[in-house]
């Protein structure tokens, strides 16, 4: 949208900018290119979404906190049922059920990315989510809502931090909020289970853009490079625990990961991330998806498969024709 508004500078106009971006962030960085092949954003930091779980609650519910059964959809459901039935928490997991377009990045999308081995919601102008994998993700969440394992209403605060839910689906930025929780984290579940080192997820990444109103663009670009240098990326990691979009984090900052071993899995996960597709009409597309998700999955008013197929058709029209 910023691009249409002529608000952002294509970074390609700077010397060696493309090399800088691609060398720093490595494989998968092409997800941040716009449709015209230009980089209007410098991928800055990522928050690979994983499943956080409350170790104490798992133990209380008779589940092994060191090896929680959360790898397959069946395991995930059984674990969720055990948690709620044992009464340790009001909900097994409580992603926001609200209607804003971006909320599906924190329920559907990480599981879809994992199930498909890293597919985006749309690719080559076609919706990808109405296939077997996408529908299975929808069915899983539908069961979770139907059985009352997740709240259909927004939690009053942070459900996981407040002890209202035993799991959360979120990136490592939230660790600071979970100070009082003895947590563990695992990759999101896949239909039949996968080794953690193969599981993809949603990046929840943040990029930096350069406004077209900027008068000293070269200086700004130099500052961008300075602030994303190896040293300053290291400072970001140290200060916030957020993952700079840089290749081989554990190898680049071995001291940090030695001191903070719990962060290693996020660094590892950061190597397999899917971004939201960079297409025109993106927000309208996600709002369409979210509205369908709300009807078919959260409130169970429509058949999941039919709803996914209808939304896919609608979204093919949106991204094909741009914003109306």
């Amino acid at each position: 949208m910023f691009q249409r508004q002529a608000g952002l500078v294509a970074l390609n106009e700077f010397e060696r900018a493309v090399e800088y971006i691609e060398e720093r962030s490595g494989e998968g960085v092409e997800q941040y290119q716009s449709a015209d092949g230009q980089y209007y954003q410098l991928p800055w930091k990522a928050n690979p979404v994983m499943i956080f779980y409350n170790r104490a609650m798992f133990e209380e519910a008779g589940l092994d906190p060191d090896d929680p059964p959360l790898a397959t959809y069946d395991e995930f459901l059984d674990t969720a049922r055990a948690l709620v039935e044992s009464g340790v928490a009001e909900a097994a997991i409580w992603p926001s059920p609200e209607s804003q377009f971006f909320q599906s990045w924190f329920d559907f999308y990480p599981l879809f990315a994992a199930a498909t081995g890293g597919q985006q919601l749309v690719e080559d102008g076609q919706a990808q989510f109405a296939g077997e994998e996408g529908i299975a993700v929808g069915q899983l969440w539908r069961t979770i809502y139907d059985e009352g394992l997740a709240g259909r209403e927004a939690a009053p605060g942070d459900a996981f931090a407040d002890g209202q839910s035993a799991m959360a689906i979120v990136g490592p930025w939230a660790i600071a909020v979970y100070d009082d929780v003895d947590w563990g984290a695992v990759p999101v579940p896949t239909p039949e289970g996968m080794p953690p080192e193969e599981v993809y997820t949603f990046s929840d990444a943040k990029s930096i853009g350069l406004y077209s109103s900027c008068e000293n663009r070269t200086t700004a670009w130099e500052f961008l490079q300075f602030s994303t240098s190896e040293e300053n990326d290291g400072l970001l990691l140290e200060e916030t625990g957020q993952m700079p979009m840089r290749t081989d984090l554990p190898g680049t900052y071995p001291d940090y990961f030695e001191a903070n071993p719990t962060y290693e899995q996020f660094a590892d996960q950061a190597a397999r991330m899917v971004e939201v597709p960079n297409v025109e009409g993106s927000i309208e597309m996600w709002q369409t998806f979210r509205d369908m998700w709300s009807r078919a999955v959260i409130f169970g008013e429509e058949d999941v498969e039919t709803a996914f197929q209808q939304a896919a058709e609608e979204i093919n029209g949106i991204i094909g024709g741009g914003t109306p």
Partner: protein
Amino acid sequence: MSAIATSGTTRRPLQRVFGRHPIGALFALPYAIFWVALFAWPLGLAVYMSFYDYFFAAPGAEVERPFVGLANYVQAFGDPSVRRAALNVAIFILINVPLTVALAMVLATALNSAIPFRTFFRAAYYVPYVTASVAMVSVWLWLFSSGGLVNQILGAAAPDPSWLVNSFWAMPIIALFATWKQLGFYVLLYLAALQNIPDTLYEAAMVDGAGVVRRFFAVTVPGVRQATTLVVILATIVGANFFTEPYLLTGGGGPNGASVSPVLLMYQEGIEQGDAGYAAAIGVVLAVVVMAISLTYRFVFEREDA
């Protein structure tokens, strides 16, 4: 104020334009500028935008915004979300306006009589009006969420799904919230109007043997009719613009758009999705409909006055 001085035939040209005291125009100028800058100009711009594929652009950027004629309006009338939002406004107004008038009038009458802790109650009803909506919404979430106070009291009688995620109850709860939040202001309008009813009317009614209820309906209600017209029109205009409630109380117009409002839709389309021309078209339609309803009210109430 003599009849001769107001006669148009003796006025000089300046007076003809600015009245008997041209300096009055100078005094009114700040408000006129305020009105033009914040009401007339944005309204004009919105009408203009609604005929274009308009989107906001970076300062100084040159972008093309093609003229699309009535396309945005055609889209708005065919959009199921807009129809749902229109229905929601209707539900909102049907609950909010009569309830506001009835409660505000009764409360103002009570607060106008000699009751204990009168000042406390007057302030208490006004507090929600001046408190930030966001804070008030938190209180209502605490009351009406699934595990909230209301459901705990109701026990098995609580609706399932709970109030704010129930497609039948979401709008009535929003209307109740807005009524409660705005009530203090309307009570104040009625309190002011009540001061204009001469005590002699009440005394005469008492002499005729009227009780409290009879005096309320025979003296108070007709006595504050002008205030009622104002309250009805204001409540409709303010009500038709509701946004905070569906945005915060029902998580973005949920469940499934059951509480989406036109202004929330405008926000989603214009700001989130960057389609400001379409949002402007929805806004223009809303403004025209609200204006039509307000004029109808005036027509009805003023005819009754005649």
